């Protein structure tokens, strides 16, 4: 297991992509088959433990480490796994160095109840080094945060065998734990017999953000324009089984049964899932009520019917059209949707325009609770996963800007773990001397210097501490940028902001000048 711990540390401490790939491919080349499959499962985030949670891990230290000392340490270190690993009482005589990742993971998998797992962990921690304790907790609680995306993993795997990154990409979603035949296939053998290539998820083609400099660089007549719908990206696989996948390739068919379509011929559609009823598209909040359901009741199906707005087509009746240019795929898409004639599926219409200024006004006037801006797509671009350059651009509407007051602060994660960097902000409920109501949370948008200043401000103005969270004296105003807002009965304030982030810190602005809740509600159209 120490090899895997070392791998994680090397990945954490080396931010260069090349170095990370070297470490990963070295690991995969030097390890046993069993270690490889577990490492792959953990690094690709497909291994998930549901038995123990953060509080169970904390519980393990009770009676072993003084509670105050734990809190002081946790506050300083900022990461539970690391604090735990450094505090767990060491007994050098019991430490065993020889356990492999696979033997550890398979014993871990044998623990079927929480109680068994806790006993198992207590024994395990007493026999291993702090680094291994750290790794174990990271594996159990998830969130390795070592900067390894599945893309990077695929690229590293392309270095150890005879398969290109594209080939790996194409078949990636057809393999799952214990990855039978995967490493053999990487080495040039054919795909395993049971491999199902029909229902495979295909990684999405994504867009790059548009910036004004591109106006001089790209030829406007080569691009088409359509709206950027504010739902969730999805992929419909029409096949013998019929599947719907999320942006990460997760099978979400059971949440959206109205879009499951079976056919002997395979077709794959790329589009946006939205809730639409009687020609009205609902806000993202309504869509959220449909996400993550295993079963969908009749009532929900009729109250919040889901609709798929198609952007693109990847396979047309068994024909792979991804290498065709966008405008040709569009013809296939139109034909397909017309024949399909499905009440819950339509095409994202192209918007006519002749000039940049016209485009800009389309973008700014697209204000609507289900449109985020516009998409520009190169007519000649093939369908390629990832974010290929010069192909697709998203041009978002300028965000809303409003001032709010910081109410709570929480320590950040990863690099920022010793700083208070996540903030809950709010505004006045009625008039400016009474109480504040929280509106949202924001954690991005400032430089390291600002982060340090904010951190200091939080420490100097703390009212109360609740674990990693501190409530602070109302006193600091921040300008929040957000893309959209909607009514929401899940929030105390009754409204929900989309993608709030701190735009600037208004060190000088008095809190009395911040607006009241009703002013914010008026922004919703």
């Amino acid at each position, binding site marked *: 297991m120490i090899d895997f711990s070392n791998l994680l540390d090397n990945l954490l401490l080396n931010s260069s992509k090349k170095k990370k790939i070297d470490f990963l491919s070295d690991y995969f080349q030097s390890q046993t088959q069993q270690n490889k499959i577990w490492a792959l499962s953990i690094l690709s985030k497909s291994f998930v433990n549901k038995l123990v949670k953060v509080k169970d891990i904390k519980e393990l230290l009770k009676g072993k480490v003084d509670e105050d000392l734990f809190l002081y340490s946790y506050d*300083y*270190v900022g990461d539970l796994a690391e604090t735990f690993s450094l505090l767990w009482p060491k007994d050098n005589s019991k430490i065993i160095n020889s356990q492999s990742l696979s033997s550890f993971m398979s014993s871990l998998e044998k623990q079927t109840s929480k109680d068994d797992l806790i006993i198992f962990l207590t024994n395990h921690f007493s026999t291993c080094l702090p680094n291994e304790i*750290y790794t174990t907790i990271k594996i159990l609680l998830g969130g390795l945060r070592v900067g390894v995306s599945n893309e990077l993993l695929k690229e590293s795997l392309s270095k150890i065998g005879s398969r290109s990154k594209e080939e790996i990409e194409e078949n990636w979603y057809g393999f799952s734990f214990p990855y039978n035949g995967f490493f053999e296939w990487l080495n040039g053998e054919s795909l395993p017999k049971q491999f199902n290539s029909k229902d495979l998820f295909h990684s999405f083609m994504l867009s790059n953000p548009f910036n004004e400099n591109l106006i001089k660089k790209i030829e406007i007549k080569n691009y088409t324009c359509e709206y950027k719908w504010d739902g969730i990206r999805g992929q419909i696989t029409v096949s013998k089984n019929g599947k719907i996948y999320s942006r990460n390739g997760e099978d979400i068919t059971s949440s959206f049964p109205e879009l499951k379509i079976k056919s002997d011929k395979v077709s794959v559609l790329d589009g946006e899932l939205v809730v639409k009823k009687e020609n009205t598209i609902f806000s993202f909040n309504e869509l959220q009520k449909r996400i993550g359901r295993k079963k969908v009741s009749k009532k929900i199906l009729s109250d919040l019917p889901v609709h798929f707005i198609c952007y693109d087509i990847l396979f047309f009746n068994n024909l792979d059209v991804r290498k065709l240019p966008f405008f040709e795929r569009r013809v296939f898409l139109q034909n397909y949707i017309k024949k399909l004639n499905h009440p819950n599926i339509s095409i994202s219409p192209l918007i006519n325009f002749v000039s940049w200024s016209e485009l800009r006004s389309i973008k700014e006037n697209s204000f609507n609770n289900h449109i985020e801006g516009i998409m520009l797509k190169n007519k000649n671009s093939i369908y390629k996963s990832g974010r290929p350059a010069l192909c697709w651009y998203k041009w978002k509407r300028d965000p809303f800007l409003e001032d709010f007051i910081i109410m709570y602060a929480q320590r950040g994660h990863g*690099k920022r773990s010793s700083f208070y960097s996540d903030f809950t902000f709010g505004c006045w409920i009625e008039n400016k001397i009474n109480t504040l109501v929280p509106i949202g949370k924001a954690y991005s948008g400032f430089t390291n210097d600002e982060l340090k200043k904010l951190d200091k401000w939080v420490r100097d103005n703390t009212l109360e501490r609740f674990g990693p969270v501190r409530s602070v004296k109302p006193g600091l105003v921040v300008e929040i940028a957000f893309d959209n807002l909607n009514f929401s009965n899940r929030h105390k304030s009754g409204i929900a902001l989309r993608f709030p982030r701190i735009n600037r810190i208004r060190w000088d602005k008095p809190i009395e000048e911040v607006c009241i809740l009703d002013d914010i509600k008026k922004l919703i159209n």
Partner: protein
Amino acid sequence: MKNWLIKKKSGLFCEPGNFYIDPIRPVDSALITHAHTDHARPNNKKILATKETINIMKIRYQDNYCKTKQQIKYGEKININGVHVKFVPAGHIIGSAQILLEYKGEKVIVSGDYKRRYDKTCQPFEINKCDTFITEATFALPVFNHPNDKIEVKKIIDSIKGNSDQVHLIGVYALGKCQRLICLLRDLGFDETIYLHGALLKISNYYETEEIDLGSLKNVTEIKDFKGGELVLCPPSALHDRWSQKFKNVIKGFVSGWMTIRQRIKQKNINLPIVISDHADWNELIDTVKEVSPENVLVTHGREEALLSFLKKKGYNCGSLNLLGFEDEDD
């Protein structure tokens, strides 16, 4: 501690002796525990310190190091207006001392910075009994258990062997850590020339005059092309500034007790963390307090809360002596 040792704006002040200990701004009379810049500052009128501390202050501050100086040997007793003063080794860096004060039968020890591990470059910490012990608390959290320094130093040697195409740029505190690290490397048989940033060279040359053999050292400026495999030491602040950009294919290391914590390592963009500290770790702090067995403990200089909470539970009469102006040394 009665009222004869008090906290003032300029630092810890001994009323009957009319002197400060490690003052943060210039005063008439100062006792200096050791030559680190947050303890030994320039422009005091009169200083009392060990020979090594005074010599290093002279190298650092030149004419401003003080107006008049008085040397004191370890173990030597001096009477200042009825206060008996004695300096004993603190094991922190060359010339570092704990200061023992005795006034009207009451004994106080100001520990300064200290460590308990073996260090070839200085005399080991000496236990002395007292009524009040003023201890530092730089690493006063139970997460700090400094590992064996030989194992840590070997990581540098192994990394150089395994990555012979890369320059190893290692951040070390200029005074103490740098020379201790070099001695440890030499003891493990590392005989190559070590390249030093100018800021480290002056102090290292001084160590050699004190007959501490550091082997072959060269100023970084003496070499134009680094082929890879060289070991370069620099102050921590230089690791990421413009100076360090001249090294192309580089592994960056940092030798410090802080390197225990992954997120600290990550924040500082370090690839090769080496945990060697010139301060006592958690267990050493506690053991030291036990051995000194004072009636009162005052904690300063670091993470005081955790140590205070622990000592209180153990029945010590203790408090925090919040002295300003002391930074985390290795930062």
